[in-house]
């Protein structure tokens, strides 16, 4: 089917806009994700300014927020809207679509040896639905009553009742519509990835020879298909409660001097439905980043990834466990404490495969010949933040300890390090590593180094102190902490955090400059700049439909024959047949 694809005549529209080519779609995902990322990160800088210097007038507020920042002082409703949309954009639009969408699309066909995705059309529809949902989300920022402001988890009744806050009016409706479209996009994408990996592997590419990137994308897609529909149902039920007077999540409510008719629903039901997606979502974000890290670490360490089978097993274990731990977000929601015990048990179990992964990464570095390219630095950085952030999960996953740190800055520190920063590092590692594959040019390494080091220092500078203010009992999502003199001694720490955040934001400009400049003026790449073993580097630099001229390469070995004894080069690509007498590693 793909073989005749390059006979089609291409117009500008079919090539750059409604493209069905996975490589173009991958670029579309990346660029849309980056644009949304700029919006999301800019929002975080705005509310960080407010947190460091509460209720101070800032010119930037007045110019960006207009009537929502009278005289330059941010309004509390806007603060809540900013944290809500920041969370939504970063989790879904940047780290789900931007990360998984980009690299699943780019790498699945290229690394398994397929001419394109199983369905190019669905793939295109998936991207355009994502684009549409991004547009709706951005439009929601401009409605009269403001965007959704109930936190990215949009718990009802706050999100269900327009009387409860301005953000629960039209802004919330648009949020729900945007998410419903997003979920449709994600499901189409995921189904396509699953089918492609199962059916379109080239000759010799057995499941046990798949690069770990593909394993990660494959399992991520499965988790998405299992859990996203549940969020869709939650969103639909919430739409019904909001607009059609049903009582799925609402009961016994008195607001603005009026008793509402709702009877018999429960917000706790919504929490269950939301977190049934919400927790697997963490791994939907993280697994692709870990997959990319496995690939980048092995390539740049010039060593096989340590414990390939254990890595695959831990991906599968994490995927399975991720669907039965959602309740750890709800220890104090009012659900039965016995359920809390069960979820503590399953949650702490997930630390085991995570620990295995971390140790395997460290061992992969041991006695390697590390090529410290920017992608490699981001991958090492990922392992570092994954450990730092993951360890505090032992505290939050323990129902007892969660009681006092639940919804404090301790949680903010934890999840930003373990999934936010780690996944972002995975995204950056992927971009630095596969930029040559995407655009045929190299990113400037020195700018990459600057980008990494400033970001790495600031990431710890921002999130490490947050553990302290969280342990002091400071709740998250507070517009200002000045209402509690008890927290006055934390004000300094908030200033420090904001300064680091601003520097980190500036460092991303270096990356953006590098990205855009290199796209057009970067040094032209060789076919296999990192001397990697995987199939994508056997495809020509110039993108062609169907990926390979002539036959698709056949695979004869696993993806990690780096520095194999008895070989001349320190890497043997997957399509090179075993030499006489050479044994393939049993794995």
């Amino acid at each position, binding site marked *: 089917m793909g073989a005749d694809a390059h006979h089609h005549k291409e117009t500008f529209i079919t090539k750059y806009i409604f493209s069905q080519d996975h490589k173009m779609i991958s670029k579309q995902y990346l660029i849309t994700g980056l644009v949304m990322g700029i919006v999301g990160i800019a929002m975080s800088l705005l509310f960080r300014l407010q947190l460091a210097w509460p209720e101070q007038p800032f010119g930037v507020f007045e110019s960006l927020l207009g009537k929502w920042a009278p005289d330059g002082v941010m309004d509390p409703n806007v603060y*809540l809207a900013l944290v809500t949309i920041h969370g939504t954009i970063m989790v879904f639009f940047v780290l789900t679509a931007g990360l998984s969408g980009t690299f699943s699309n780019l790498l699945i066909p290229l690394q398994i040896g397929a001419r394109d995705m199983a369905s190019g059309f669905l793939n295109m529809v998936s991207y355009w639905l994502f684009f549409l949902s991004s547009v709706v989300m951005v439009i929601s920022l401009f409605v009269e009553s403001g965007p959704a402001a109930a936190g990215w988890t949009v718990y009802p009744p706050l999100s269900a009742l327009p009387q409860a806050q301005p953000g629960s009016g039209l802004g919330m409706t648009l949020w729900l519509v945007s998410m419903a479209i997003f979920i449709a996009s994600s499901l189409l994408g995921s189904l396509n990835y699953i089918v492609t990996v199962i059916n379109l592997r080239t000759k010799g590419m057995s499941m046990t020879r798949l690069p770990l990137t593909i394993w990660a994308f494959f399992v991520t897609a499965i988790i998405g298909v299992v859990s996203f529909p549940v969020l869709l149902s939650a969103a639909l039920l919430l739409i019904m409660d909001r607009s059609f007077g049903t009582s799925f999540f609402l009961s016994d409510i*008195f607001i603005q001097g009026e008793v509402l008719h709702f009877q018999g629903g429960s917000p706790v039901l919504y929490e269950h439905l939301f977190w049934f997606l919400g927790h697997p979502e963490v791994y939907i974000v993280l697994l692709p980043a870990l997959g990319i890290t496995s690939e980048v670490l092995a390539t740049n360490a010039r060593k*096989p990834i340590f414990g390939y089978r254990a890595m695959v097993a831990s991906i599968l274990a994490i995927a399975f466990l991720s669907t039965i731990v959602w309740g750890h977000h709800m220890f104090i929601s009012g659900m039965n404490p016995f359920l809390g015990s069960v979820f503590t048990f399953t949650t702490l179990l997930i630390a085991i495969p995570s620990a295995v992964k971390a140790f395997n990464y460290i061992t992969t570095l041991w006695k390697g*010949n590390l090529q*410290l390219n920017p992608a490699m630095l981001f991958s090492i950085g990922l392992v570092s933040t994954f450990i730092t952030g993951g360890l505090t999960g032992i505290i939050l996953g323990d129902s007892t300890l969660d*009681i006092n740190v639940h919804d404090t800055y301790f949680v903010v520190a934890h999840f930003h390090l373990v999934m936010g920063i780690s996944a972002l590092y995975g995204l950056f590692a992927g971009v630095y590593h596969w930029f040559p594959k995407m655009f045929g040019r190299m990113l400037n390494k020195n700018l990459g180094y600057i980008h990494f*080091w400033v970001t790495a220092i600031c990431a710890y500078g921002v999130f490490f102190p947050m553990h302290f203010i969280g342990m002091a009992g400071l709740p998250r999502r507070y517009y200002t902490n000045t209402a509690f003199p008890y927290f006055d001694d934390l004000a*300094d720490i908030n200033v420090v955090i904001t300064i680091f955040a601003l520097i980190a934001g500036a460092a991303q400009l270096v990356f953006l400059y590098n990205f855009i400049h290199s796209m057009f003026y970067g040094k032209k790449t060789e076919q296999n700049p990192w001397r990697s073993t995987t199939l994508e580097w056997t495809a020509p630099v110039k993108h062609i439909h169907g990926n390979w001229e002539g036959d698709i390469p056949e695979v004869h070995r696993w993806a990690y024959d780096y*520095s194999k004894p008895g070989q001349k080069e320190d890497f043997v690509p997957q399509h090179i047949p075993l030499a006489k007498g050479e044994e393939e590693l049993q794995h």
Partner: protein
Amino acid sequence: MTALLTITVLVLVGIALWQITKIFEVSQLGRKKDDSQVANDKDNDLQGKLMFAFLVFIYLITIYSFWAWGDVLLPEAASEHGVDYDRLMWISFALIFFVQTITQALLHYFSYKYRGEKDKKALFYADNDRLEFIWTIIPVITLAGLILYGLYTWTNIMNIEEDDEALIVELYAQQFNWKARYAGADNVLGDANVRFLQDFDGLNVIGIDASDPNGLDDIVVQELHLPVGRKVIFKMRSQDVLHSAYMPHFRAQMNCVPGMITEFAFTPTITTDEMRMNPDMVAKVEKINKIRYENSQELIANGEEALEPYQFDYLLLCNKICGASHYNMQMKIIVEEEKDFNKWLAEQSTFAETIQ
């Protein structure tokens, strides 16, 4: 303090800039022959060393944070179970620190030690079942211990037995304030529902069912008083959106959910007066008042009112996003001797008195 922090940040930025220029210089040296944008030996050498420096940075920021901000961590527990909570917390923390120190050291040291050289070859080392087994089984054993200890504590905290001795208090949440209801002489809370809120011209502020005799002696207040040493069982309600009753000094938190009654219980062990005398707390309050004094000077200079000096009180905060004034939804908690508590309670009016 602020000055010190600013200096630290400036120093860090300075170091960062210095490193950046250094990187730039190094890159300039190699530029003539190598512009491949792939790391060469010089890059590997510098970046490997920076990796090691980063390890030092992680350790330093950890030590600095504890030195500068260690005093804000977990204030002294003022409830019976709070002591168990803190013990479990510090055990978990000790474990985390141990693992963090070792793994970060290995990760960054390897990144430094095995930085690439052109003629070196990596060790082909793909698998070792024994190693995998070791680092599976060690977390299994450690976590099993933590899980068992955690669940034991959790069950103790959450297993709320209704005994006659316990004081029953309802916490009532609404946008954006808290109210509390005591059960009165019969120690039984009367039935309540939002549908009764509009009875008695709005005097029925938390919607008690006037036809339920148990409710007539109930007492509704705006300030929470608790007797020291007696178990308090909280029944929590919300009239509009989700709220969360968070009492950090008592290691207590539970969501308030419209349409349902949630529960939490603890026994306060330290009175407000005692806590105010606690040396750590005295130091903290002094520090806060110094900050407030400095801020006041600034305010006065701008012709505004000075801040009031701060005195310690236990807090009930809202810890579930609930709308615009979420950040200011609070109630003062006063823990006192039983006789003072009884005296205070006797001065409050009952529901029957309120609606007359």
